[in-house]
């Protein structure tokens, strides 16, 4: 393995090389076994402190990061923004500087503004891990999706991956697109025109508005959640119409390959973007994605914690 890890932070997959992504995936593969042991803990991050700084609700990602950190023996602190001094008018950077002053090693943050983790990464010495920023990137989700695909298909290069749903608001879509295209996959994005960002094809993806076209020939179908909380106005006539046109159901699965993988980053709106029979069906790897998330996050924590160069 030629790649070396020299980044203090993980902000997105856009800036990573294919080798760096490969290193994270291989490291995660070694970490996966730890969660199957009777004693699910290694001493690697003993004495390191990790702050989880979530400005948006999260169950999966926060729990997954928390378990990953605990299984590596790190100490963790959760900051809930509703109970923090940000409600008293403190700026994000000041809050982060104060956390830094408490000698914290890693800050894992989720924020509704794209670029917020980058702002902190440039101003404080702890490693910043982006756990989702606005509609920009969600790198560990992208990585765990790619890890899950690789586990099943043994490769990424040459695979046809279709990402279907609300592309415009989805940081998961963007991290997947960056990661998959760097590793040589053919990515197709599909959704209603109102949920398709302009010029998305510049990222090297194929665009279609016809779900049949996205399903046919796909080795992997990644269904995105309809993000009702991020929509200022109504971008499609009704949930029901969306489900009919862009929801994955048994009828549309007739166009799929026999060995297709069905993925979803969660949380699922059952009956909207995916029907329960497909989400719980034989092609679905949705819960495997959750299991793999811990291994991928352990790998990321391991790699960034070893970087010695810090902002003074």
């Amino acid at each position: 393995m030629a790649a070396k890890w020299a980044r203090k932070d993980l902000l997105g997959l856009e800036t990573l090389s294919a080798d760096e992504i490969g290193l994270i995936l291989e490291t995660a593969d070694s970490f996966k076994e730890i969660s199957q042991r009777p004693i699910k803990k290694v001493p690697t991050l003993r004495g390191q402190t990790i702050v989880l700084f979530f400005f948006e609700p999260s169950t999966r990602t926060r729990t997954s990061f928390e378990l990953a950190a605990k299984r590596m023996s790190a100490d963790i602190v959760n900051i809930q923004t509703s109970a923090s001094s940000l409600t008293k008018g403190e700026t994000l950077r000041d809050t982060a500087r104060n956390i830094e002053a408490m000698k914290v090693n890693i800050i894992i943050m989720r924020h509704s503004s794209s670029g917020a983790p980058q702002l902190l990464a440039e101003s404080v010495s702890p490693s910043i891990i982006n756990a989702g920023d606005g509609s920009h990137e969600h790198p560990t989700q992208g990585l765990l999706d790619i890890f899950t695909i690789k586990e099943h298909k043994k490769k990424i290069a040459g695979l046809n991956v279709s990402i279907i749903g609300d592309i415009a608001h989805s940081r998961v879509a963007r991290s997947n697109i960056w990661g998959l295209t760097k590793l040589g996959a053919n990515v197709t994005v599909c959704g209603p025109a109102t949920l398709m960002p302009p010029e998305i094809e510049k990222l090297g993806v194929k665009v279609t508005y016809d779900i049949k076209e996205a399903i046919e020939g796909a080795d992997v179908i990644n269904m995105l959640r309809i993000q009702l909380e991020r929509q200022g106005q109504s971008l499609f006539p009704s949930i029901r119409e969306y489900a009919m046109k862009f929801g994955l159901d048994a009828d549309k699965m007739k166009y799929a390959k026999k060995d297709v993988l069905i993925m979803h980053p969660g949380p699922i709106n059952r009956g909207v973007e995916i029907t329960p029979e497909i989400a719980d069906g034989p092609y679905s790897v949705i819960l495997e994605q959750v299991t793999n998330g811990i291994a991928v996050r352990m790998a990321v924590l391991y790699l960034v914690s070893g970087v010695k160069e810090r902002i003074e």
Partner: protein
Amino acid sequence: MKLREKAKVMDAGQIESAIVRIAHEIIENNKSVEGLAIVGIRTRGALLADRLAGKMGAIVDREIPVGALDITLYRDDLTDVAEQPVVHKTEIDFDIHDKVIILVDDVLYTGRTIRCALDALIDFGRPKSIQLAVLVDRGHRELPIRADYAGKNIPTSQKETVQVKMKEADGEDGVIVAEMEE
């Protein structure tokens, strides 16, 4: 820093007979192979473990469980090394609870690797006992650890390094003592 080869202290034949001798000693010492399993430390200890399990299996005519342990995550010097070492897979597909574990490594030196391996092993359960087999014991222990089975004792100075080469990883078998050039 360059390494200058000083002496070849074991060749392929000597490695082979050392493994055979250790295999016999383990069986004799433990009276039977019932409840016995072998775990090698990656990279070359795991390769030795595979060979040892093969020899022992042939002697007693039954398969001996064998696993591989990666100790990177247990190292006590992670804060000192320049960058994070690559983590390899730990593969122990059997329950170690109540088993006699033969822990295998290529070179026994300071004892710190073995200390890590003991910690790692115990996270998999509570073995009945752990015995240590090494191909080369070169002295200079920094911890109270000793080998139960050693292929060869090689007195060395701390300026020297001992390199075990194995066909599976290095293309040939052999043990070399080398010295760091100033």
